């Protein structure tokens, strides 16, 4: 084939037919990827902090205060003086997960990312939805750092939003200007206040934080359990499959709401409990979807090619099957989030939610008795909730079109 | 196949006479008009990348009792062309210009509803994938009988008898026994036969078959082609047959229209086109066929072994001859102006290539010169770059 007789040159030439594969055989290939290392590195401080919180911080003390007291670091100066809950730790860990396994890969593969983006941006409503969700996400993340937590101030109750007025009789004390016996809104409370004098705008922004926590943490739990159960079920087959699918049946038919109410009466239920209960009983559909998707993907020729390459089943599943099922369940998950947000709002409205948190549902509940003369208390968070849910739905549809490979061939035909 | 269908034929052709009387719309058609006459048909689609010209001004006719083959690679616009004939293209995003006359009546001027009636009654379609076209929830007989009763008001028993008859006509063995079976109990070839039976329900004058044998095994394919040929002869059907397979064309066609990038490259009686192909594209297509060297002595060696490059971008077709960028015989004159006009190189045999003058011998194509081959390579290269640059 080749006239090149220099053995060294042959060994070095990057040609497939000159590689001595025997020499490579047995080499280790299953190394931990850089992404995983970086994720572990960034998530470690959070885990450490959570551990410290549990072990060292006192009952009435925030973890930052305890840490500052122990190390003499001026943490308060950085605004780190708030109480950290278990939900916050989980939220931070989830965010890192999303950054390292969703955002970073998109930057690492700009070619495919721009391909997805080109197809995604064809869908105008989805673009607007994405922008809106960025607002909610940014507001939820940064808002609490900028705005003070909502506080009761009876004297400032029922203030109208900017540009609106309300009869003075309904207001304990008008913060803005009074004209013709009507109290006007001020920029101190851009969206008015509740009966207790809590700023609706502040409430809406803090509600964004709660909603983002619900969205991210439930998604992670549901996706984690769903993908694991679905893939294992599809690949193991036999009795494992059978057991897993019956478990899914149970999860799907489980009366989650009643169970949550039971937990609520026995233990009392905070946001953390809500998230845990609802996501632990919310993965059934996802698992079923992943299973069917994994079964169909494993029939694809590129999976067979993966097996033919000599790769272990684990590697084929991890590298080919899971990514190809995961991208299509992104859609399913974005459509699941609105359900959780709505459930939280409904429970809060019925007075069954966590009254210590400033969720949109709580705000709506607070305004329901004053609907006649102070509709903004209900309308402002209500509209934001409605828009957010709508945005998730639009986003889900657009993501399906953007990342589904079958849609690729259809569209490019 | 003709044998067991002959009983049905007498019945069927009698009904055809009645049927055509009922569907003729008396629009001043004369018997001189061809069954189907297409002139300047141009179908474009609005896309984000600009107007996509799928079919770029093609003409052809189909006479009664004749099979015309539209042949071309995928992307040549052949399927869009036949779908444009009878309103199977949604407008928008599609836009259809030109004239389609069926028995002398202009189809493009008809409102959609009338067009659908035409499509149902006088023009029948057979598609590539019979399994997609049959409803798996109902028996074959049920579907046939329904089609018959939609078309004419007959009793259940009469419709059933006619359904059995039709199945017999298309060569389904034991039609009486199998009429109550479901589509999944039929093989691929039998399903295609059932689809043809469905198409015959309305006693059409024109049968449009879009790659009807592509999904079938070669043994089954031969039977279906034979059937279409028999039906053409028995019913005097006009058949418009769309395919990418030249070997199929040689078996069934009376006349051939070779399409490339939405334009007609060459047309003529099948014997002329196959024995004395004129256009470099036709020659290259014939030379591509595997395992048939012996059949191809007439064709020069220049085209053997595939056609380099790929189809031009339909949103920005090249100047001059559409095939010039891939043509081994291309000269600079080939890439200017519009697609060359068709010139006659035989009786009904016409070619759109600047290398021919009217009356030339189709084998008079000059050998590709060095410079032409060079030009071809560089243009293929640049076409490649375009594709890459596009991303």
């Amino acid at each position, binding site marked *: *084939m080749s006239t090149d007789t220099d053995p060294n040159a042959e060994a070095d030439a*990057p*040609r*497939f037919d000159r590689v001595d594969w025997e020499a*490579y*055989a*047995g*080499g280790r*290939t299953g*190394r931990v990827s850089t992404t995983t290392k970086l994720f572990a590195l960034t998530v470690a401080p959070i885990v450490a902090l959570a551990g410290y919180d549990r072990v060292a911080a006192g009952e009435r003390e925030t973890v930052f205060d305890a840490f500052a007291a122990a190390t003499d670091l001026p943490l308060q100066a950085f605004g780190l003086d708030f109480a950290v809950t278990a939900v916050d730790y989980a939220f931070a860990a989830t965010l890192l997960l999303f950054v390292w396994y969703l955002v970073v890969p998109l930057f690492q593969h700009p*070619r*495919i990312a721009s391909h997805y983006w080109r197809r995604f941006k064809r869908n105008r409503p989805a673009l607007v939805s994405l922008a809106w969700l960025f607002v909610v996400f940014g507001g939820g993340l940064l808002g609490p750092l900028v705005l003070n937590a909502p506080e009761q101030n009876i004297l400032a109750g029922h203030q109208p939003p900017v540009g609106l007025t309300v009869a003075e009789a309904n207001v304990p004390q008008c913060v803005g200007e009074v004209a013709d016996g009507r109290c006007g809104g001020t920029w101190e409370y851009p969206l008015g206040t509740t009966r207790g004098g809590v700023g609706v705008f502040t409430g809406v922004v803090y509600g964004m934080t709660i909603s983002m926590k619900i969205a991210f943490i439930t998604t992670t739990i549901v996706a984690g359990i769903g993908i694991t159960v679905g893939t294992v079920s599809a690949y193991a087959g036999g009795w494992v499959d059978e057991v897993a699918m019956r478990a899914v049946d149970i999860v799907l038919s489980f009366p989650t709401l009643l169970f949550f109410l039971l937990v609520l009466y026995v233990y009392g239920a905070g946001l953390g409990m809500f998230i845990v209960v609802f996501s632990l009983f919310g993965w059934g559909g996802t698992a079923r979807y992943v299973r069917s998707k994994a079964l169909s993907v494993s029939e694809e*020729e*590129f999976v067979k*090619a993966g097996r*033919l390459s*000599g*790769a272990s089943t684990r590697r084929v599943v991890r590298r080919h099957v899971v*990514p*190809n099922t995961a991208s299509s369940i992104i859609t399913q998950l974005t459509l699941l989030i609105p359900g959780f947000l709505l459930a939280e709002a409904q429970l809060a409205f019925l007075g069954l939610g966590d009254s210590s948190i400033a969720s949109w549902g709580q705000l709506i509940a607070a305004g329901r008795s004053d609907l006649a003369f102070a509709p903004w208390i209900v309308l402002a968070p209500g509209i934001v909730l409605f828009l957010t849910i709508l945005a998730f739905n639009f986003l889900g549809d657009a993501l399906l079109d953007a990342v589904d490979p079958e849609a690729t061939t259809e569209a490019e035909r | 196949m003709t*044998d*067991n269908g*002959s009983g*049905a*034929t*007498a*019945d069927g052709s*009698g009904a055809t006479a009645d049927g055509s009387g009922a569907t003729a719309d008396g629009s001043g058609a004369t018997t001189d008009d061809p069954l189907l006459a297409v002139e300047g048909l141009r179908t474009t689609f609005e896309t984000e990348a600009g107007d996509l010209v799928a079919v770029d001004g093609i003409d052809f006719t189909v006479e009664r009792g004749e099979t015309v083959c539209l042949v071309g*690679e995928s992307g040549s616009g052949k399927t869009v062309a036949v779908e444009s004939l009878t309103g199977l293209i949604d407008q928008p995003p599609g836009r259809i210009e030109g004239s389609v006359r069926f028995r002398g009546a202009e189809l493009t001027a008809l409102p959609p509803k009338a067009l659908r009636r035409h499509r149902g009654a006088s023009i029948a379609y057979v598609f590539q994938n019979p399994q997609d076209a049959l409803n798996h929830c109902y028996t074959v007989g049920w579907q046939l009988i329904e089609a018959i009763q939609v078309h004419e008001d007959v009793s259940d028993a*009469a419709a059933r*008898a006619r359904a059995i008859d039709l199945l017999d006509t298309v060569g389904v*063995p*034991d039609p*009486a*026994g199998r009429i109550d079976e479901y589509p999944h109990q039929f093989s691929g070839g*039998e399903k295609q036969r059932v689809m043809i039976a469905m198409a015959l329900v309305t006693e059409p004058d024109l049968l449009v078959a879009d790659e009807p044998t592509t999904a079938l*095994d*070669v*043994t089954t394919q*031969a*039977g279906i082609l*034979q059937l279409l040929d028999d039906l053409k002869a028995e019913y005097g059907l006009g058949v418009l047959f769309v395919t990418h*397979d030249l*070997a199929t*064309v*040689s*078996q069934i*066609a009376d006349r051939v229209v070779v399409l490339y990038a939405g334009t007609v490259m060459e047309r003529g009686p*099948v014997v002329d086109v*196959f024995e004395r192909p004129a256009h470099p594209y036709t020659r290259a297509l014939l030379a*591509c*066929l*595997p*395992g*048939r060297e012996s*059949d191809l002595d007439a064709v020069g060696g220049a085209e053997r*072994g*595939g056609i380099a490059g*790929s189809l031009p971008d339909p949103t920005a077709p090249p100047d001059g001859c559409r095939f010039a960028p891939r043509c081994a015989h291309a000269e600079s004159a080939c890439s200017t102006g519009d697609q060359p006009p068709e010139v006659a190189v035989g009786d009904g045999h016409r070619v759109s290539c600047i290398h021919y003058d009217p009356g030339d011998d189709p084998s008079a194509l000059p050998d590709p010169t060095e410079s032409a081959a060079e030009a071809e390579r560089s243009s293929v290269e640049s076409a490649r770059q375009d594709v890459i640059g596009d*991303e």
Partner: protein
Amino acid sequence: MSDAPLLSVRDLTKHYTTTRGGLFSRETNRIRAVDGVSFDIHPGEALGLVGESGCGKSTTASSVLRLTEPTAGDVIFNGGGRGGAGRNDDGTHPNDVTRFDRNELKAFRRDAQLIFQDPASSFDPRLSVGASIAELPLVHGMTDAERRRAIVEDLLERVGLSADEYDRYPHEFSGGEKQRLALARALVLNPDLLVADEPVSALDVSVQADILRLIDDLRAEFGLSVLFISHDISVVREVCDRTAVMYLGEIVEVGPTEAVFETPQHPYTEALLSAVPTLDPRSSGDHIRLTGSVPSPADPPSGCRFHTRCHRVIQPDGIDLDQSVWRRVLDFRERVVAGEIDSASVRERVRVGEASPGPPAGRSERAAADDTEVGGPDTDDAARVRAAYDLPATFRDPDVDRAVADAVAALLSGDDARAAETLAEAFTTPCADHAPEFTTHSDGHRAACLRHRPDLPGGMGVFDAE
């Protein structure tokens, strides 16, 4: 050593069992997809495997590569420096792919690769094609990413693409280009055997020629052996040295490509060849028409599996009919015995016959019979039944005629069992009773047809290709 085949497949069998009922499943059905297939491929040789869809050729390919576990049989692979080994004492072979353990199988993956039919789904849509191809060297231990990339880029150029296409994604390639990429992926580990499963049937004709030529060039350059699977025998003719014809899970004929195509020794091969459309528009298109459809591999016919469709099916002693008439008689018999034709359907056909105007006949035999016969409604009905099922109105052989008449009468009187019994008794063929064995016709050209058995009636070793 050089005579030793690279791949030697012996009695390869793959049966699928379909089960139903979840946890408490039971075996319900056994599909014999591949039923005792044997062939050899020598180093540097291309063997074609042809047959209709459903004949088991793709299952054979994936069983050879152990993508599916074969039910039985040996697949002995002597490539990759394994040559020279003999059988063990217990009859097993150290190079038997079906007995390879995990590590041996992984090493085997380097030496035998596959290209698929569907270019659209053969690459992971979420990986760049370069990454997909470079995964194979990685799996086999080459951790040096630079070197992997260099090898893959070099290979991309060898299959007619350019090195900078490494970072592009599958959706950016045409079908033909993807098939080139698939070839690159199959070659990257420098295999000895390439299995090509319908590699061009999803491509345009103009692209097919390119890919076939590329396969041929690569085969010559790297000394590859190729198992080429296709339903299109003209493609096989183009690239293969030897050809094996499969029908219903069995090989019926195998030999040098030219011999198989020029002097086919099995009726099925004849029929396949005759079905291929020629490029000559003047040819009459006079094909051998196979009757019926491919039987279910769950319940293959006894004896020669092709006998239910064969145009050369043997007539037993004492019957001497025109071969096409004999075929129709047998078809009628099969369908009555199988219950496909019963008294209900016969009566329905008779009604249809009455309803249609004109005589229910078109064939001359029948027309003649109608002219001479003057009968009551019964004989009319009987004639209609015969016409409807493609049988002549009268047979020259009185025994045959009587048997058919009895059966038709039984059907008309509603006695299905008696009709089936009469026909089953009267018409038998040796093809249904004897499984054919391979006979050798010329160097390496073998076929399994009872026509080649001189000891059978009608066999006499005669097989004159028309």
